[in-house]
């Protein structure tokens, strides 16, 4: 085969693969784009515009200001930040030492505990929802931030992810640290955690997106707008204030999605490193 045909072959191959990727991206991004387009359309055009992507008249100002003023959107977002941060911090405090113990310490119960962690991965959150709800109700803790966060403090996925990451950490460095006089806790804090930044970033992205977007659990344990996280807030907003004002609703949705995109862009490089290094995919 000549060099020219080789090059055309390669061109065709790359065109085909790019076409596939573009198709996939379009499929995933289209609802998102539609959300953004609806958020800048006047109310009259939301259903009449058909598939015409360009709005005839920009209504972004009205929609966004309505979303911001007619509902306590900032309050919802603040609740979201508080809940996500609380969950993430406790998850890390539990999962990093847990992952270290499973990866680097040898104790008799280790295989059993690791088996339980894997088993825990298969238990969906809905299964434990009812008992936890009853317990919270009996303790009079419904309608609190604590109630929204409680079921997620212990992340078996986090323990598993950090265990995979720490498995590849050189044993000799841990030996050196023990000889130097580090306690196990200090090894975790001073040696292991600084090396785990990519894994922490990856886990943070997983954790924050899933709890920022979670509607199921907040819906069960809170009824007040005071503690509502963004998706729950959006629901309350739709029911009470706007009724069928989809433009404003989509503007609100766009606003609450924005922080997630920012977080991901910020952590993207570390996230990809973390995923590739832990072998979780």
């Amino acid at each position, binding site marked *: 085969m000549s060099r020219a045909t080789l090059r055309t072959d390669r061109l065709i191959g790359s065109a085909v693969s790019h076409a596939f990727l573009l198709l996939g991206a379009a499929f995933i991004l289209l609802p998102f784009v539609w959300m953004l387009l609806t958020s800048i359309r006047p109310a009259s055009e939301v259903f009449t515009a058909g598939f015409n992507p360009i709005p005839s008249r920009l209504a972004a100002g009205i929609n966004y200001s309505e979303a911001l003023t007619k509902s306590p959107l900032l309050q919802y977002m603040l609740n979201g930040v508080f809940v996500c941060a609380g969950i993430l911090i406790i998850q890390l405090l539990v999962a990093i030492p847990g992952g270290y113990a499973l990866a680097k310490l040898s104790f008799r119960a280790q295989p059993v505990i690791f088996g339980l962690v894997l088993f825990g991965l298969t238990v969906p959150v809905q299964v434990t929802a009812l008992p936890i709800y009853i317990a919270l109700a009996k303790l009079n803790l419904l309608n609190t931030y604590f109630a929204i966060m409680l079921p997620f403090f212990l992340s078996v996925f986090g323990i598993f992810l950090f265990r995979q990451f720490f498995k590849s950490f*050189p044993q000799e460095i841990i*030996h050196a640290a023990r000889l*130097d006089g580090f306690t196990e806790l200090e090894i975790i804090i001073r*040696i292991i955690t600084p090396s785990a930044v990519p894994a922490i970033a990856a886990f943070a992205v997983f954790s924050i997106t899933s709890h920022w977007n979670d509607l199921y659990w907040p819906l069960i344990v809170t009824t007040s707008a005071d503690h509502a996280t963004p998706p729950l807030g959006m629901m309350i907003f739709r029911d009470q204030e706007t009724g069928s004002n989809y433009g404003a609703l989509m503007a609100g949705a766009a606003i609450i999605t924005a922080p997630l995109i920012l977080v991901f862009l910020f952590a993207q490089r570390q996230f990809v490193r973390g995923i590739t290094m832990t072998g979780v995919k």
Partner: protein
Amino acid sequence: MSHLELTGLSKSFGTTKVLNDVSLSVRNGEFLTLVGASGCGKSTILRVIAGLEPQDSGTVQIGGRGVDHLRPKQRKVAMVFQSYALYPHMSVAENMSMPLVMQRLNLAERLPLIGRLSANCRRVMTEIAAEVDAVAKQLQIEALLTRKPAQLSGGQRQRVALGRSMVRHPDVFLMDEPLSNLDAKLRVHMRAELTDLHRRLGVTFIYVTHDQVEAMTMSDRVALMDEGRIVQLGTPSDLYHNPSDLRVARFIGSPQINIVSGTTTAQGILVGEALLPIAVSSPAGQVVSVGLRPEALSLDPVAGQPNLAARLTRVENLGAELFLHFVLQESGAPLVLRATLQDYERHKARLNSPVALGVECARALVFDAAGHRVDQASRAALRLEVPA
């Protein structure tokens, strides 16, 4: 005083026995090398001494005191690892000061940020910085103190790892193949530096390597290990000239010792048609292995002495000396001969031409089928003691 005493150490991982009743006594200030093929248990001994892995049975004593119940940091040993095991996110100075920080500050003072508030902590940190500087100067790495390990070359990392082990002034240095990640030239250089360091510090070194050259050139004594046991413990020249076991004879020496098989007779050992007049303790008619170091063979057969008929197959010229590779005419067994350039040129041995090789029978080592040394006559006479 920091002599080290291992008594009856055994250790298994699952069903494999890694250490099998190892006893060893290391003198204060001695440079002792554990050498052996990978998987022979030598690194495990170091980790047991350091307290990083518990033994199944047996005891470890350092300076006459049992240390089995002590944690690694309380044993006053320092270890240098093959991968250097530097803390990747800390600078060279931080790496080197860590052992002292851990030793001299209490748990509260070690806390990041908060610890700095205490006056005692600040004072100790200045002391430590001065000591780290002094050690860095000794190792000529004072220019690297602010760098991170990733920015250092292999040799520099090696020095930092050494420095980290030196700052604590341990009773015993444990070194786990510290030179095996360096390139050949640097390895030779660091060999000299390590022996020099040992002389300067005068502390007990236990050095693990799979490289017999390192074992031979650096140590006061060498323990050769195989399958979790010490096969022979002795000076380098003991192991070379007077190995007690075929495994030792094979492992020590480069090029490897020549092994030809022979049969014992009343007059000596019959190798092919040549009768080597060597007295052995085993009965006649036994098959034995005759070990001949490359310098026990010569191109000049001595009159009245036996010689071996061989054919030259390859010449390796190292400049000052040559390794001549032969095969025995009868059995086809390979032989290596160490010759000077003058010898070689005088003989004008050509490739594939037959040559009669002289054998210095007094230097022949004879082993029975189990690998034990059986030529007792030559045993005592050959011992070469290196002056202390």
